[in-house]
């Protein structure tokens, strides 16, 4: 009987392993497919022959990207945007969330600010009024339209608040007894303690602004100002227009030489590389951020 149980447990275990592996492959294979397309010859891509391995291996698409000035321009815009957004987020969110962990006895209008924060999280003006505000501020077609509207991510404020609350009060008090003012306490006691959660909100910020294409789509009127994801998004539309208008002959020659699909695939792969580079950190900090982010006020 025990033997019997052992066998069924082994079978069950094997099935569980199999399902988990299959789910893993289902997540991985589509991503491998696009990498394979980026390294394949255009004939094979157009004929949809590419599966998991490149067909007619070529790096032509990548060498094409090297000299694609618009691609790198958009890439650069995204890099600048990510850096500025991150800096602004940290400068605004860290002091704010620290002040918000104070009691009303220490910080009299704490609840007024907190309610403003929560209401902004619960309700928003929506796409069109926000667009009009950004437009009226004269930010259209400037990089600031990509940065300023997301200057204070409220989720990050709450996450930081939860973390600060978990830091033992005694640490602060020791500094206060030594005569430190709140700014000194924040910079020399709280921030060093809060490094993991600062990493978490930083990564949220970086991933969010790198991946965002919508701000670029609505706030930038010219392709030359597009951040990288908006630029990549615009490629598929351009292809449609190209086909509809049967555009200039030089453009059509380009298509036959190198189908847009493997060129686009290569652009996508390059655009994802920055995220892959920080992926180990994403796994380390955002996963922990996810479990502590079951947000409480």
């Amino acid at each position, binding site marked *: 009987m025990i033997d019997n149980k052992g066998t069924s447990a082994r079978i069950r275990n094997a099935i569980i392993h199999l399902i988990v592996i299959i789910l893993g492959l289902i997540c991985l294979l589509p991503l491998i497919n696009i990498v394979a397309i980026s390294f394949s010859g255009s004939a094979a891509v157009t004929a949809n022959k590419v599966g998991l391995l490149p067909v007619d291996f070529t790096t032509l698409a990548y060498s094409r990207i090297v000299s694609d000035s618009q691609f790198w321009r958009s890439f650069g815009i995204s890099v600048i945007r990510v850096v500025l957004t991150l800096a602004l987020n940290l400068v605004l969110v860290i002091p704010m969330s620290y002040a918000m962990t104070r009691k009303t006895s220490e910080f009299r209008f704490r609840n007024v600010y907190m309610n403003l924060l929560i209401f*902004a999280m619960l309700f928003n003006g929506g796409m069109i009024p926000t667009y009009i505000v950004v437009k009226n501020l004269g930010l259209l077609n400037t990089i600031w339209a990509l940065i300023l509207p997301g200057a204070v991510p409220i989720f990050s404020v709450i996450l930081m608040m939860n973390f600060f609350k978990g830091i033992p009060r005694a640490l602060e008090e020791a500094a206060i007894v030594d005569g430190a003012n709140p700014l000194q306490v924040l910079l020399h006691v709280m921030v060093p303690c809060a490094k993991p959660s600062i990493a978490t909100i930083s990564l949220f910020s970086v991933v969010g602004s790198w991946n965002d294409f919508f701000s670029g789509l609505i706030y930038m009127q010219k392709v030359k100002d597009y951040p990288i994801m908006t630029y990549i998004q615009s490629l598929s539309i351009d292809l449609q227009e190209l086909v509809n208008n049967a555009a200039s002959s030089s453009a059509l020659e380009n298509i036959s030489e190198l189908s847009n699909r493997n060129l686009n695939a290569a652009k996508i792969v390059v655009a994802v590389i920055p995220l892959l580079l920080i992926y180990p950190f994403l796994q380390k900090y955002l996963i922990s951020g996810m479990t502590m982010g079951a947000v409480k006020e």
Partner: protein
Amino acid sequence: MKTKTLKPINNTGSQSRFFHLFVVPGMIFLLIFNYLPMFGLVMAFQDFVPAKGFFGSKFVGLKHFQYMLQLPDIGRVIRNTLIIAVGKIFFGMILAIAFAILLNEIRMKFLKSTVQTIVYLPHFLSWVVLAAVAVNLFNLDGSVNQILASIGIGKINFLGSNQVFRKLIIGTDVWKEFGYNSVVYLAAITGIDPSLHEAAAIDGASWWKRIWHITIPGMLPIIMLMTAMNLTSVLSAGFDQVYNLYSPIVYESGDVLDTYVYRIGLVGRQYSFGAAVGLARSAVATLMMVTANHLTDRLTGQRIY
């Protein structure tokens, strides 16, 4: 637990000043980019003309809301939004929970961490990227259709058929998010006292019984919390995803509130009408969030905000 701090009272004023300084810069941004647009919603009650501004445009009362209720589009858009959002929440949670339970059974460290690394990845990729991946796979001649054809099912026009488009949207979203969403459930499982499982095993409870009577009840608080949190997003069926995958052929089944507001309001420049739809959407969303917060507070003692 908390020890009363002995602070000289005259110190509080200067401390407060610091805290104001900490908060005010961020608040200025919130006022400009979150609160100004809320006041801008006044345009939903106007025939807003950008050149005339909020003060110069003519007030028309509820005209746009009445118009909205008469449009056949709106019913279609709301239906699509709800079906897609509920489908994503339901199937997404089921798969994430099941995956967490299965993953917890894996003892081989290397396999476990490798699979985790892979399944978390899609969450961090933009829909711009994943839509391109999906189009490559699901177009009429794509790999998926080649496989379907070779096993005799025949080709399915995933991207261009109103019968399957919503399923594609729900399926690809579940694919993208189940790994990352399983994290909280996995954490909940590891928080369950292992002696419960041991005791049940000694009493002869089968694996299924233990999952059903120990693991799932142990996860229930977090499942309820996540359900409530997810329900708050029931009116946003995922603009980025739908926008990058849909086309006019599938507006019938795939057009959702956010894409509709974008197309009609921003692209079509019917600012006031778009703002009216947006306001209705935001109001309902806020109501749902407050309700969900009360519910989870009552049921689990945890609050969303």
